[in-house]
Every structure is written in C-alpha cells, then in structure tokens.
C-alpha cells in the first residue's frame, strides 16, 4: 500500500486583487515590429560605413603556419584587414562572467580570431573591411592560409581517452580538488554528492541503469549575429549590436581590446531572438579592430551558415544514469556520470545540468560526476535552461521506467518523490517554497491526462523539469512627466516582453494605468549596470528594481502633497494612484494632478531601483504529450501537448503562455529532428535551415498551457522566472510518449524517422 504524503509546506496565499498584473495589454514595442519600423542591428547605416567579412577555417583542427593578407590588402576598395596579431596581447587569463555562462579571457580572445591553431571548421582567422560586401568577400579569397591539418576529435568520449589528440597541450583538468598532472581534453571535473550512495543502492528494491546521448543543437534564433563599430580617433568605441546584454558586450570588449569601460558605448538594437546565444561576442571586437584601422564605421553580419558553424550551440551529451527505488515507489539512490561537450573551449553548461537533472526529486543518496570536455566543434554557449534539457532527458526517461517497474503511473511516482520546501539537493542547495507538487497535481487533474488514448501506435508521455532561475543586477530610473506619464528607462535588453512586464509592475505599484508608462531600453552610457537578459531573471529582478523606484516616487509624492497641504507626511495616504489627507477628506490629488504640480513643489520626481536580489524562486514544470508513430516511415506526429508550469505570478499571462509555447516548440525540435550533423572531418553537413530541421507550424499542434501560480515569497509580486523551464521536460516527455506508443525505449536523440525505424528494427 502506497501512501502519498502531501508536502508540509506553507499554504499558497490568496492572490492579491491586482489591477494591472494579470491583464494582457498590448506590448509597447509591438506596433513598430509589426509595421517593420523597429530597428535591428542589420538596419544600421552610417556615413562612410564599411562592410566587414570574416575568413573562416576550412578544416576542424590545424596549426596555423602562416596567413598572407598582402594580396587582399591591395584589392581596390579594401580599407582594412585584421588577424589575431591585431588583437592586444593579454597579460591576464581571468574568468569572464558573462551572466549566463562565461569563459577564460584567453579562450575568448582566441575564439574571436584564431592565433596558433584553428579548433573547429568555421573558426575565424582573418577579417576584411571594404566599401561593399562583395569586395570584402573577394578580398577573403585572396588571403593565403598555410595550415598544417591535424586529426579532429569530435566525440567527447573519444576526446577523454588518454591517447586522444589534444586540442590544447596547455589544457589541464580543473576541479575543486586541484589540477591534473597531465594535459587533457577534459577541462573540468565536478562532483555533487549527498548521503551514502552505496548504502542507498543496497536499500533499493529496483535498480535501472541506462546510457543516454543527445546531439549538439543550436538555439535557432532567426536574426543572425551582427555588430557595427566605430572606433573614434580619441579611442572611444561605439557599438550597435544584437545582444542579450549590452553591459556584457561592453565588459567583453573592454577586456579583449584593453579599452576602459567608460570609453565604450554599446547600443543594444531590437533583438530577433537569442535564447542564450547572444551573450558572447563574435563580430563586435573584429568590427572595432577594423574600424580602428580604417578610421570608419564597420558593419558586420553573419550568414546563416556562419551562425550555425561558428557561434555557440549547446553541448551534445553522454549521460550514464543509475537509479534505485523501494517497492513502495520511493527513490532511494541515484548515480550519474555526465559528459558535456564544450566545443573548442571550456564553456559547457555542465554545472547547471548536474544541478537540474534530479531537481524535481527528493532523493537521499546521490552521487553525480560531471566532465566538461573540449572537442573540435564551435565553442558552446548558453541555450535556454542551459544544460538542463539533456539532463532531464536522461532522468525523466529513467524515472518513467522505474515507475513502470514498481507498478505506478508516472505522475503518481513523480508526486511521491517530488522535491519541495526544505529538500536538500545534491548540489548543496535547499529548496525554498516551490510549486513542483502543485504542477504534478495539476497534471494529474488535467483534462489531457484523463482523456482516452487508445489507437494503435499512439502513446502518451510525461516529464518534469526544473530551472532554478537567477536574480542578477538591474538598474533603472522612472521619471514622472508633467502630464502624469512616466518614462521608464531600463538597461535590460528585451528579448521576451520585459518592457511590458516592467511597465506593468510599475503601473501596479503606482496605481496608475499601464498606458501611462513609456518603457525603453537605454544604452550603456545612459543607465547603470544591468546583467544580461538571461537565466529567466529580468521580469523578476527588473521587477524588483521597478518596485524600488515606485516606492521612491511614492515617498516624493507624499512629501510634495504634505508640503502643499501644510500637513505632516504621516497624514498623507497614497493608494491606487490617489493622494489623500487623512485629517482633511477634502484634500485629494490624483497621481496626474500631483505630477502637474511637481515642478512647482520641488522639482522633477524621479525614482530609481538598483537591487541585487539573490532569493530567486525556482520554476518547476510537468508536461504531457500525445504522439502518433508511423511504423512505415518512422515519422512522429505530435497530437496534443499540455505544459503545466509554476509561474509564480503571471504578470502578463499571454507572454507567459508564449514563453511556454516557445520553449516547448524548441524542445520538440530537439527531441525529434535537430542535430549538428558532422562528417568524420568535422565539417557540418547541415549548415542551413533547409537541412537543420527546426519544427514548423506544420509539426506542432496548439500547445496548451496550465499556469499554476505559487507566488515566490521573496518578490513583492511573487514573480518567478518563466522563460527557461518550458524547454526542460519536452525531450523526455516526447521520448516517453514514443516508448508508450512503440513499446521500445529510445536512449539517443533526435528521434527522427531514421532513428525510429532503426529502433523498431525496420532498417539497419
């Protein structure tokens, strides 16, 4: 007899009666984008502007013997040519924290323009600026490269072997315990442990062990990387770019080019998608070097092939996972061996993968060993819940098998073992109030879960997932205008609707209409430091900043009213956008009326917020998916998809639903089709969106969402980040549904028709 215990945690408080939060107003940037007037990086056009192009390595691994640029420099129309010799020599090799991911400075330096070796096909080697893009391209063909080709290492497990060719003979394995004695392609070893793993497995009644693999995949943002730079004669640099973090770009440029922060101005343009991939710089420092040489602004944009071959996808992974459960369904032990490929330089999201893999479960005995391994592929970058989807593919597939072996349905098994307030995770964290249990319960009660599904070759799968979210630094100002409107100047680049959610929180805090707020994203010269828009932090942390700014404005409004009414400030009340005098009910001013009097009662009213919130609320999700497998073609059709997620408080429910649907779409693509298809020489065979198969509207049904609201108790409006966890469960949910449909477990992604037919024994 299995007895489920409801977690002992505080009850969910009743939702306050918000006036703006929870509504669905039109986004402030919507019209400009719809009519095509919004300015993206590729729209920049400056007087005298040149066009830059990059010469990239044609091979995956080679020593650079020489680069002869003389013929290119002589081509009419060419104004500058740069190689790694034009980058400043760096004396330090500090770790650069880019917010979501980071890396050693020397590695970032070498990734911008290769010096001694090229480490992947597409690695930038030289760059040309010319009066038009065609001349720049022609000039690239005149650059003579002398490369000594080396065997590439493409598989992380092969790269870990002692006899594997080394990408870097100065790279050693780093861990908390120290550094390896010999060079290695294993850049990092990390370990998370809790309890006694051997004793745990000794208590288990059922043990399952499997090996899982996922491929390197790309974020798939539609707008390619771009960057325009102007290096002035007085050594001030202005950069226009598509980025998730203008301040991160500024910091990277400062370290790479040895120019003080205050001499670099980064202007973030509208962004056509990022998903973690638009944090590291690629073109911006090159454009700046070219601009310095040419004395003119230089614009650079990538082709789609360059985006796929030479920016940062996410890691392919190998995960061996063993889990044990008691007969009553309780998980008792889990051990994992995780290998994440980093690409050419250490950068994989191994730590987050290790932390998130078993996050939905309360398991007393856990041991996880993780390895970050370099291979001859592009340096990886963050991708939506970095590291977590592949880890969840392994854990959630195995949990599904375990549930079956102890005779429980997969949701009941998950709920019995659900992590909750007070659960200590193997990474050392102790969970605050979370909505994991509530999500699983909502899934169990959903119409989808309880709907029949009986046709042959159809299956239903579920999976859970977690992303812990982030806080980071936000800075903004809110200026009250004389007509009662408020100009909200923020520094968080808007990739998912954060201008709207910031404006909504400010309107809520001030008790004024959303339409009165005019939010815009400023450049690095015009606002204080902001961390990147990533880690699902912006609506949370910038929301905190907005709340702080609103409190400052309220205090000033009260001061001014007290001065006008010649009463004590304690006698003034401000509620729902109206000032009243407690001692004289006849005295009353609306926010707008007080704003009109601001200049005559002491000057401009401005609030600012600069918080550094650390107590961010983790987000959990449980997904349900129905699939149909065609046994003749191997094609998998998604029939129905429901994503249940604890969203804290849905500030703008349409944006929350959109984030969830977007994450699911990407996760389904990862599960079914997307793959970096390399040949044996390390050449990417599908470097176009024709061959790199992303899901389209024809591949997906309407994705239903169920928003569970367990407010984050550490945020004034209960906000949790919502943007990343939706991509965590789909890989395993789809794989579990296919297993249900076919009776066959699939341990390697993607599950494209070829893989499905092989799994079914239809082809060899």
């Amino acid at each position, binding site marked *: 007899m299995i007895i489920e215990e409801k977690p002992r945690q505080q009850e969910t408080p009743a939702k306050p009666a918000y006036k703006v939060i929870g509504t669905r107003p039109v986004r402030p940037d919507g019209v400009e984008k719809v009519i095509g007037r919004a300015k993206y990086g590729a729209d920049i056009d400056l007087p005298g502007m040149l066009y830059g192009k990059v010469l990239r390595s044609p091979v995956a691994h080679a020593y650079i013997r020489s680069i002869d640029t003389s013929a290119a420099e002589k081509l009419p129309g060419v104004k500058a040519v740069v190689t790694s010799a034009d980058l400043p020599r760096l004396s330090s090799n500090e770790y650069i924290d880019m917010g979501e991911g980071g890396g050693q400075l020397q590695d970032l330096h070498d990734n911008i323009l290769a010096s001694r070796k090229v480490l992947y096909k597409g690695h930038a080697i030289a760059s040309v600026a010319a009066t038009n893009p065609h001349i720049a391209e022609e000039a690239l063909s005149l650059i003579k490269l002398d490369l000594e080709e080396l065997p590439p290492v493409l598989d992380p497990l092969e790269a870990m072997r002692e006899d594997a060719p080394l990408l870097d003979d100065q790279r050693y394995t780093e861990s908390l315990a120290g550094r390896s004695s010999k060079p290695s392609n294993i850049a990092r070893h990390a370990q998370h*442990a809790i309890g006694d793993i051997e004793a745990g497995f000794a208590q288990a009644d059922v043990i399952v062990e499997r090996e899982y693999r996922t491929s390197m995949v790309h974020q798939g943002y539609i707008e390619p990387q771009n960057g325009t730079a102007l290096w002035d004669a007085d050594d001030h640099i202005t950069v226009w770019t598509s980025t998730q973090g203008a301040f991160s770009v500024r910091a990277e440029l400062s370290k790479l080019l040895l120019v003080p922060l205050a001499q670099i101005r980064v202007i973030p343009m509208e962004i056509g998608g990022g998903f973690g991939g638009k944090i590291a710089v690629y073109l911006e420092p090159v454009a700046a070097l070219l601009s310095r040489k040419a004395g003119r602004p230089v614009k650079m944009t990538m082709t789609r092939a360059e985006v796929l071959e030479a920016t940062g996808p996410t890691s392919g992974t190998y995960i061996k996972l063993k889990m044990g459960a008691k007969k009553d369904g309780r998980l008792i032990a889990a051990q994992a061996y995780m290998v994440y490929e980093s690409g050419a330089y250490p950068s994989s999201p191994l730590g*987050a993968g290790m932390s998130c893999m078993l996050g939905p479960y309360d398991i007393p005995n856990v041991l996880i060993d993780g390895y970050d391994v370099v291979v001859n592929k592009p340096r990886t970058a963050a991708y939506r819940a970095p590291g977590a989807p592949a880890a969840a593919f392994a854990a959630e597939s195995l949990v599904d098998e375990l549930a079956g072996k102890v005779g429980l349905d997969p949701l009941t098994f998950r709920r019995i073992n659900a992590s909750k307030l007070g659960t200590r995770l193997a990474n*050392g*964290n102790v969970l605050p109030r979370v909505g994991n249990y509530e999500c699983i319960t909502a899934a169990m009660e959903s119409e989808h879960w309880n709907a029949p599904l009986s046709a042959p070759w159809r299956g239903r799968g579920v999976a859970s997932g977690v992303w812990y979210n*982030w*806080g980071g630094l936000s800075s903004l100002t809110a200026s009250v205008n004389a007509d009662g409107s408020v100009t909200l100047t923020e520094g968080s680049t808007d990739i998912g609707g954060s201008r709207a959610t910031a404006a909504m929180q400010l309107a809520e805090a001030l008790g004024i209409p959303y339409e009165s707020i005019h939010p815009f994203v400023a450049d690095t010269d015009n606002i204080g430091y902001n961390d990147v828009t990533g*880690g699902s932090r912006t609506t949370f942390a910038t929301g905190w900043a907005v709340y702080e700014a609103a409190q400052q404005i309220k205090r000033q409004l009260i001061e001014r009213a007290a001065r006008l009414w010649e009463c004590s400030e304690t006698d003034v009340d401000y509620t729902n956008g109206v000032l009243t005098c407690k001692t004289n009910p006849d005295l009353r001013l609306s926010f707008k009326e007080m704003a009109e009097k601001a200049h005559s009662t002491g000057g401009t009213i401005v609030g600012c917020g600069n918080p550094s919130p*650390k107590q961010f609320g983790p987000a959990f999700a449980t997904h349900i998916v129905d699939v149909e497998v065609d046994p003749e073609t191997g094609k998998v059709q998604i029939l129905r998809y429901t994503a249940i997620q604890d969203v804290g408080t849905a500030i703008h429910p349409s944006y929350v639903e959109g984030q969830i649907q977007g994450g699911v779409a990407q996760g389904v693509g990862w599960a079914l089709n997307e793959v970096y298809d390399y040949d044996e020489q390390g050449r990417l065979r599908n470097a176009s969106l024709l061959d790199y198969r992303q899901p389209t509207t024809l591949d997906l049904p309407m994705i239903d969402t169920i928003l569970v609201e367990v407010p984050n108790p550490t945020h004034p409006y209960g906000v949790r980040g919502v943007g990343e966890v939706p991509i965590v469960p789909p890989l395993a949910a789809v794989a579990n549904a296919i297993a249900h449909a076919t009776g066959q477990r699939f341990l390697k992604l993607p599950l494209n028709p070829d893989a499905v037919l092989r799994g079914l024994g239809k082809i060899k």
Partner: protein
Amino acid sequence: MVKVWIPALLRPLVNGQVKLAVEGSTVREALHNLSTTYPNLGARLWDGQHLRPGLAFAINGQIAPLGLSQTINTDDEVEILPAIGGGTLSPASHR
C-alpha cells in the same frame, strides 16, 4: 560555532568530513579559520587573499547575498557550493 558543509571533492582534504564546526562572524572569517585548521583546504579555497573562482555560498540553504562578507550567526549552516552562472548560483556571489 557555525557549521560549514564541505563539497564532495574537497572532503579528502578534511579527513572525509562532510560538515565542520568553526568560529566566525562572517563567511570570510569562518573560511579563514577553517583554512588555518586545514591548510590543504585553504590552498584550494584561496589564491592569496582572493577566493578562487568557481565557488559560491549559501547560508541555511539560501544564497548569501553578500558572499564572503555575509554575516553569520551561531548555528547557521554555511554551504560551499560550485558556482553556476545564470542558473542556480552566480559566480559573482563571492564578491
């Protein structure tokens, strides 16, 4: 005395112990005192006066907003955690 949880890979440097009791009114003070008792551990935590990169701290399971400067009280539990940018923990939390 506060209790400091030791990461798995550092436990061999403290005779395999998982938790250690130590005096200290800030995270920095507690770690310095621990480093005095276990110099090999100290060598892994500190690079001169600076904390090595890749570490963050939690007090009673919650991220320490002020990192090394965070004040701690008797019976608090300090966790030395692997830092993860943009996710669970920020590498900057050891500022």
